[in-house]
């Protein structure tokens, strides 16, 4: 029998490599291998702001004389693509990383800590707390943020005025009261738009609701507390279930409404309130993209009875791979690229500012809120002070763990089941908690 089948490490290697080849295809790996041969930095992003990234890469190459092979893949397939590349040993030096993947990628040994690179960590003091926390895992920092945002509460000012309200709701109880009045007045059949379809965005929507109700899904020690009636997610889930089934202020179709469809529905004027990513405010107030342009305002996330204006924040960062960190020169060059994108380039936060000005995406750098150009641009479509105020309430997702992807499947189903009346709130949260505990035990 061949050694490849009998020797454990060879067998594992063969399995991993074959699986990776099957997924990635020989073409991609071939291209990547050629890239390594040229001794350039291999830089992977998802397909967002491609032209902006390319321009900034070109400026980096000019400044430092370090060639960069820039590649991108669609967001929807990015995790699978990168995991396949890592497993297959394809050359990757710097990559965009979602906060949700950090434990998985760090535990697998694909990402390297950047604690030893002061040119990266020196920016921490100017970065929002939830962003710093989101880049850390088991006491180590794994990158530098270039984009962050949070779940925001928006309202249609015109609809509120029409219903006789002079200010937006500050609590979830007020949301029910204002929505009920609007529903009765025929202003909107379902005044609140919630996206509860089972997609990657769902955890962000759920976390915002749970945090603002003063609850947690998982505590700081990593224990599942979502089913705890006092400190868990029960109040938030019960509120959603009642909003759909009792008050009927949220459409039962929320379980089939994804983030993008929710945005479309809100921008077409069907709703008075919406939970949407903050960066969407630009398109919502753009007459070319929205029928309610000029009417959308941001308010602080409504608070639950025992809650606050807390919301969930998310962030993406530049991570350095373990293979880049292994080589001192390569690691140093990768750190330069990370700083160029996540930190200052020629003394300024150029990339984050470019992303904001080009597509309205958020940033975790506190000082950028005071940048005159940023303020002037933002004031054209919304209130930057409100945006900053809410960002201070943003918290990192408490469910980010190596088993997050597996648990997320069960948790999403649990929430949908409760909303659709297929299970009680307690049963749904119990099944979510059990799944978390089981996966945690498995490691």
């Amino acid at each position, binding site marked *: 029998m061949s050694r490849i089948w009998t020797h454990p490490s060879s067998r594992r290697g063969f399995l991993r490599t074959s699986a990776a080849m099957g997924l990635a295809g020989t073409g991609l790996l071939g291209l990547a291998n050629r890239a390594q041969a040229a001794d350039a930095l291999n830089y992977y992003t998802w397909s967002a702001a491609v032209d902006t990234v390319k321009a900034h890469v070109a400026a980096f190459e000019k400044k430092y004389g370090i060639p960069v092979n820039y590649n991108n893949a669609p967001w929807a397939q990015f995790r*699978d693509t990168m995991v396949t590349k890592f497993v297959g040993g394809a050359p990757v030096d710097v990559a965009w990383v979602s906060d949700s993947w950090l434990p998985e990628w760090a535990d697998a040994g694909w990402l390297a800590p950047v604690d030893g690179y002061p040119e990266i960590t020196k920016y921490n003091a100017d970065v929002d707390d939830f962003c710093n926390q989101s880049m850390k895992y088991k006491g180590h920092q794994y990158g530098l943020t270039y984009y962050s945002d949070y779940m925001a509460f928006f309202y249609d000012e015109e609809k509120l005025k029409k219903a006789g309200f002079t200010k937006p709701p500050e609590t979830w109880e007020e949301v029910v009261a204002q929505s009920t009045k609007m529903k009765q007045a025929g202003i909107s059949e379902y005044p609140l738009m919630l996206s509860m379809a089972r997609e990657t965005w769902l955890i962000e929507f759920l976390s915002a609701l749970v945090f603002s109700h003063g609850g947690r899904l998982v505590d700081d020690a990593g224990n599942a507390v979502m089913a705890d009636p006092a400190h868990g997610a029960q109040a938030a889930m019960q509120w959603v279930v009642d909003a759909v089934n009792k008050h009927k202020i949220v459409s039962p*179709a929320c379980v089939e409404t994804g983030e993008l469809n929710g945005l479309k529905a809100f921008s077409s004027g069907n709703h008075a309130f919406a939970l949407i990513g903050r960066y969407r405010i630009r398109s919502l107030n753009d007459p070319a993209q929205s029928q309610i342009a000029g009417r959308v305002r941001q308010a602080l996330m409504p608070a639950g009875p025992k809650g606050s204006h807390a919301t969930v924040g998310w962030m993406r960062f530049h991570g350095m791979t373990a293979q880049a960190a292994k080589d001192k020169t390569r690691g140093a060059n990768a750190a330069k690229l990370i700083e160029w994108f996540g930190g200052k380039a020629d003394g300024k936060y150029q990339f984050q500012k470019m992303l904001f000005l080009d597509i309205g995406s958020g940033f975790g750098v506190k000082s950028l809120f005071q940048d005159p150009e940023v303020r002037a641009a933002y004031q054209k479509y919304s209130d930057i002070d409100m945006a900053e105020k809410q960002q201070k309430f943003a918290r990192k997702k408490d469910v980010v763990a190596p088993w997050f992807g597996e648990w997320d499947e069960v948790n999403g189903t649990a929430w949908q089941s409760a909303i659709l009346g297929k299970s009680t709130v307690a049963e749904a949260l119990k099944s979510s908690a059990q799944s978390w505990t089981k996966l945690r035990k498995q490691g």
Partner: protein
Amino acid sequence: MGGAWRQHVSDYDQKSAMLFLAPMLAVLSVVAVFPVVYSFWISLFDLRLTRPRSVPFVWFDNYAHVFADPLFWTSVARTATFTVMAVSAIMVIATLMALLLNEEFRGRRILSAVLLVPWAIPYVADGLMWKWIYDSGYGALNGLLYQLDFIDKYMVWLGDTRKTLPLIANAFVWKEVPLATILLLVTMKSIPADLYGAAKVDGANVWQRFLHVTLPALRPGFMLVMIYETMMAIRHFDLFFILTEGGPANASHVLAWDVYVETFRKLSFGTGAALAYLIALITFLLAFSIIRTMGKKL
């Protein structure tokens, strides 16, 4: 002499045939046989891409894990429901369409061409189109029913767990009916006209001719369509991915979706491969039983 020569030619022919077939056999071995064998091999390992340092050989644990999961059995039941709904509808509609197109009437050729349109549309485009039609906020279905006064407010379609599976089956049927119709029409065209003539002479009316001539003669076509569509329905993934992603609340979590979740979301290749093998086995057994049942009567 002649016998030896013939033997020589025969051997030569066989060797030539093998030589000409060799490249294709090699290609098939690489692209078909190896993946099939290798995926079975993978199904015996706890291969998770996210835990690359530990890939233990677990024998049939992945299969045991699948069988012990209640979601697997509900997925089997849902897949069976979807398959029965879809294949029954396809058989009935395709038979009616084939009967219609078997008649001579004005516009038959145009109708035949139009019938092929759904078949020509890729499944992804088909899914996106139906997603738009079924949307509860701005969907064409709600718009149509509302304008016709069948409903007084917009309905929830895919978000209603009782409607999810039938609606996906409907989109599947729409796409699959053309091929089934063509297959049945071809079989129908091969029925000798004499049989109908003889039946008429015997005094059989239209219904009796359909029942005693057309239907029995269509059996090979039915068998082909049933096997093909059953296999398609059991393995179908695209519409589930585009329309519902297995939701809401697992209402459309079928076997093919389970394979996708295990393999590409959880990146658990071992369990994913085990599930894929189980689907293949179920499909094979069903096809085999259909052939055994219907083939006997051919």
